[in-house]
């Protein structure tokens, strides 16, 4: 995979339309590091809408701000936890049920840092990265509403 912005220190953010294979990304991410004892990853998939079976999902984003906002989250995670590396890949455009939307991976000497940083990044990506999901079902198209629980999740950080 090409592209992705290297962030000061470490960490990489990739925002792309193209599909990717999380297992390949994870293998490359974890490869050949003597300083890492723990790698945690999260993969987000397209699922059916709450209102019924999904036909397609459309994800819109704000080019420029997206990379900038996620880059800041990664920098913050690298500051708060002892991380060796960090990777965020997030797609936009049209997707179908079961498709991979995004992944987060964190690498650390010990697992507690890797788990905490991955959760922090997921919580922030949910409601502070400028993406908007629109679900198309048999009943029509609808923008996904933000959930109060997602906003609530940010308070613990």
């Amino acid at each position, binding site marked *: 995979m090409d592209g992705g912005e290297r962030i000061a220190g470490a960490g990489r953010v990739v925002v792309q339309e193209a599909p990717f294979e999380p297992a390949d990304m994870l293998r490359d991410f974890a490869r050949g590091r003597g300083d890492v004892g723990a790698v945690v990853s999260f993969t987000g998939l397209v699922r059916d809408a709450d209102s019924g079976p999904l036909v397609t999902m459309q994800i819109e984003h*704000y080019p420029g*701000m997206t990379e*900038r906002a996620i880059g800041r989250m990664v920098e913050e995670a690298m500051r708060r936890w002892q991380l060796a590396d960090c990777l965020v890949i997030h797609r936009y455009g049209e997707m179908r049920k079961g498709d991979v939307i*995004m992944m987060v991976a964190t690498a650390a000497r010990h697992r507690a840092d890797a788990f905490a940083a991955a959760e922090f990044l997921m919580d922030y990506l949910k409601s502070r990265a*400028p*993406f908007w*999901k629109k679900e198309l079902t048999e009943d029509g198209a609808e923008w996904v509403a*933000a959930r109060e629980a997602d906003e609530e999740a940010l308070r613990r950080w």
Partner: protein
Amino acid sequence: MIDVLYFAWVRERIGLPREQVETQARTVAELVEELKARDPRYAAAFADVSALRAAVDQDLVDDFSASIEGAREVAFFPPMTGG
């Protein structure tokens, strides 16, 4: 002149993704008032500002009293749904 960008249902209600706006507004809130006065589409999109978020030069603002003086672009959108 300032670039004003719209995303998701805000873009759909207004009917365009971005435009250049001549404005005297000093804050996001003042810009919203100017836009609302233009046309019913804007009035509909901005009817409930509590449902909206804004970014000034690609930084999310905490509230609409944020300054836009010297800004190149202001964006309006619903709460984000990433991840």
